[in-house]
C-alpha cells in the first residue's frame, strides 16, 4: 500500500493519546491511574525497542505491526478507565472490569477461528444470525451517551447532574472500549494470519 510500517508504528503512539485524554480527566478523581497510563505507554515503547533489537532484519516489520496492535489495544483500554476510575474504592469490581476487557481480546481470537467471524466475514459465507447485533452495540452506546453531540450531553448533564457523564457516559465508554478491543484484535488477527502480512 506504500505505507512505511516503521513510520506507522511510531505514529501509532498518537492513537492512545486521544483516549488517554478521557482516561486522565474523566471523572475528576485523584487516583493512581495516571501512573498506569504512563506505564502502558512505557511498556509499548520498551516493547517496540526490545522487539526491534531481538527480531532479525527480515522480521522487524512484524515488530512494528505488533506495536501498532498494542497501541490500538491501549487506545481501547483507555476508553474503559473513566468508569473504572469512577468505581474508586471498589477494588473487586475494578479488577473484574479489567479482566473483562482482556477477555474480550481473547474472545476476538476465538471468534476469528470460527468459520464465519463477526468482523470482516469472508464474502462467500452465508453469514451468521444476529451478527448485526454486534454492530448495533456501539450505535446503542452512542445513543445513550447523547449521540456524540456535546451540546446535547451538556443539556442532559445540566438536567441530570454530573453523574450522567460519570456513570452513564462511563459505562458507554467502557462498553465501547471492550467493543473496540474485540474489533481491532479481530482485524489484526485476521490480517496477521490470513492476509499473509506476517513474515514467516
Amino acid at each position: 500500500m506504500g505505507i512505511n510500517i516503521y513510520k506507522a508504528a511510531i505514529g501509532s503512539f498518537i492513537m492512545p493519546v486521544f483516549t488517554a485524554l478521557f482516561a486522565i480527566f474523566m471523572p475528576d478523581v485523584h487516583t493512581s491511574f495516571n501512573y498506569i497510563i504512563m506505564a502502558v505507554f512505557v511498556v509499548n515503547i520498551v516493547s517496540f525497542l526490545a522487539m526491534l533489537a531481538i527480531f532479525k532484519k527480515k522480521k522487524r516489520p512484524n515488530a512494528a505491526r505488533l506495536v501498532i496492535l498494542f497501541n490500538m489495544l491501549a487506545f481501547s483500554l483507555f476508553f474503559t478507565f473513566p468508569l473504572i476510575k469512577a468505581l474508586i474504592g471498589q477494588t473487586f469490581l475494578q479488577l473484574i472490569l479489567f479482566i473483562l476487557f482482556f477477555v474480550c481480546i481473547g474472545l476476538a481470537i476465538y471468534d476469528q477461528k470460527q468459520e464465519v467471524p463477526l468482523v470482516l466475514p469472508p464474502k462467500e459465507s452465508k453469514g451468521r444470525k444476529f451478527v448485526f447485533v454486534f454492530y448495533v452495540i456501539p450505535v446503542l452506546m452512542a445513543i445513550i451517551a447523547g449521540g456524540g453531540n456535546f451540546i446535547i450531553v451538556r443539556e442532559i448533564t445540566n438536567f441530570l447532574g454530573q453523574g450522567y457523564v460519570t456513570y452513564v457516559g462511563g459505562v458507554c465508554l467502557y462498553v465501547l472500549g471492550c467493543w473496540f478491543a474485540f474489533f481491532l484484535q479481530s482485524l489484526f488477527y485476521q490480517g496477521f494470519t490470513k492476509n499473509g502480512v506476517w513474515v514467516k
Partner: protein
Amino acid sequence: MKRKHSRKIFAIFMIAFLLFWSALPSISMAFFITPGKPITPGQAITGGQPITGGQFILPGDPIQGGEAYNAGPGLKGGNTSSSGQPIVPPYQNSNGQFIPAIPSSLPINKPITAGDAITGGQGPSGGQGANGGNATEGGTNPTGGNAINGGDGQTGGTSPTGGDGSSGGNPVNGGEGPSTGESLTGGDSPNGGDGSTSGGSLPAGDPSSGNVNNSNGTTPGGDGTGGGTGAGSGTANPSFAQQTFTALKDTKKMFVSIPNYLGQMLDGGLSVMAGFKITDLKTASGKRNLIQVDGRATAVKGSGSISTWLNMRYSDYLNSFENSKSVVRGKGGSVAVINSDGTKSTRNYAIFQPRSGSKIKQKHVQGFINEVTSFKSVWTKTKDYMKKNWIPLDKWKVNKDFFKAKSVLAKGNGIANIVLSVGSRLAENAADPKRTGTDLAAGITTDVLLGAGQTAISAGAGWGASVLTAAAVGSVVPGVGTIVGAGVGLGLALFMSSNTGKTISRKVESVVKSGIEWVKNSKLGKGIRGLFGG
C-alpha cells in the same frame, strides 16, 4: 533450524508480553508500594500499682416511719352557685340583629362601570420621543383598547390614526429593545405600510446593531419620508440569525449529507459487516501491484423497510468517497416507498456496491487509498478543514470562508449543532439576567468552535486508525476509520461535559468574548461586522 529457533523466541516473547498485559494493573500498582519503616521494639510493660481496697460501705440510719395521715375537716357545702346571667339577654333583641336586607340602593348593586381603558404604558420604545406627537395621541386615545395589540398602548393608540398604524408592528419587536422599535419611526411616516415592513428587522437582538437602528429611526422620525428609509435600513442589514435561517432553507442536502457520530458508527459498522476492504496482493512492486476489492453488495439481508434503509445507507457510504469509482460501481435499483397518502410506489436509485472480486492495478486505486490512508492527505484535509471552519483570521486578514453561511453550518454536526446551540444559549441567557447579548454571541461562537474542534480531532483519529490498520494488516478497511473517529467524537462530547471540559469551555468562551469586544472596537472588526451586516 533457524526457523524453529526464531519461532521459540517469538513464542517466549508473546507469552511474556501477554503476561505483562494481564498483570499490568497489579504490576503498576506494585510499582508504588514502598517498604515502610521497620517496627522498633517499644518499652517493656511495667506492672502498675496494686489495687487498694476501698472503704466498706457502712449501713446508714434506719428509715423511721412518718406521721400518720390525719383526715382534715369535712367538706362543707358553700353558697349555691349562681348560674350567672342568662346567656340570652331578656330583652327581645337577644336573638341578635337580623341582617337587614341589602337595600337596592347600595352601591354594590350599581352596575360596574368600566374604568378607563387601560392604556398601555410607554414601553421601552417610549424612547420614540422624537415621534412624540404620535406617541401622545396614542396614550390619550380613548380607543386605547388597542393596547391588546401587543400591549404597546402607545403604538396601539396611534394605530387608528392611520399614519402611525405602521408602528403597530413595533410592539412585536418591543422585546427586542430600542433598536427595531425606533427604526420604525416610520410611525411618523404617512406611508404606514412601509413602517410595518421594517418590523422585519429581527436582528435587533444584537445591542450593537440596535444602536445603529435606533439612530436611523430617530433621525428621520419627524419626517415621514425618513420613516420609510428607517424601514429600509432594517431590511438592508440582515443579521447573523437571518443569514442562518435563510441558509437553512438551502442546506437540506447538507443536513442529510453530513452524518453525525451516530450515522458514522452505523455506516462504518455496516461496511465492516459487509466485509468491504481492499487487500494488497503483493504481486509486484509499485503501482503495477494488484489490489483486490472485497465486500458484499448489501450489508444486511432481507427486503423489509429496515433492511432496505440499512442497505441504502451502506450504498450511500460507499459512494461518499471522492475516489469511490475505482472501488465501487453503481447499479440501478428500485426501492419500494410508502407515499404520504399511504400508497406504495417504487423509486429508482443508483445502488452502489464494491467491485468485489476484482483484481485492480494499484495505480487505478491509488487515489482511493490516498484518500483514506495517506498521512499527507490526513494532514492536508485536517489543515484545510481547520482553516476553513475554525480560524477566522488567515494571515491577519479576515478568512471569508470561515464566515460563509454554509461553512458555519458545516461546523460540528452541521445545522443540528447551530440550532441546538442557539436554543441552549438562549435558555442560558434567559436564566441569568446578567448575561448580555455579547455573552449570547460568545456562547454560540464557542459552541461552533468546539464543534469544529471535536469534528477535526475525531476525523484525525479516524484517518489515523485507517492508516495504521492498512499498514499493519495489509488491507485498507475504510469502516475502521469511520467507527474509530466516531468513537473518539463520542468520548470528546462526554469529556466536554466533565468538570475539566467545562472549565476549558468557559475559558474558550471568555477568550471569544474578548475577541468579540475587540472586533467591535477595531478597524478589522468593521470588516468582519460588515460580513454579518453589522
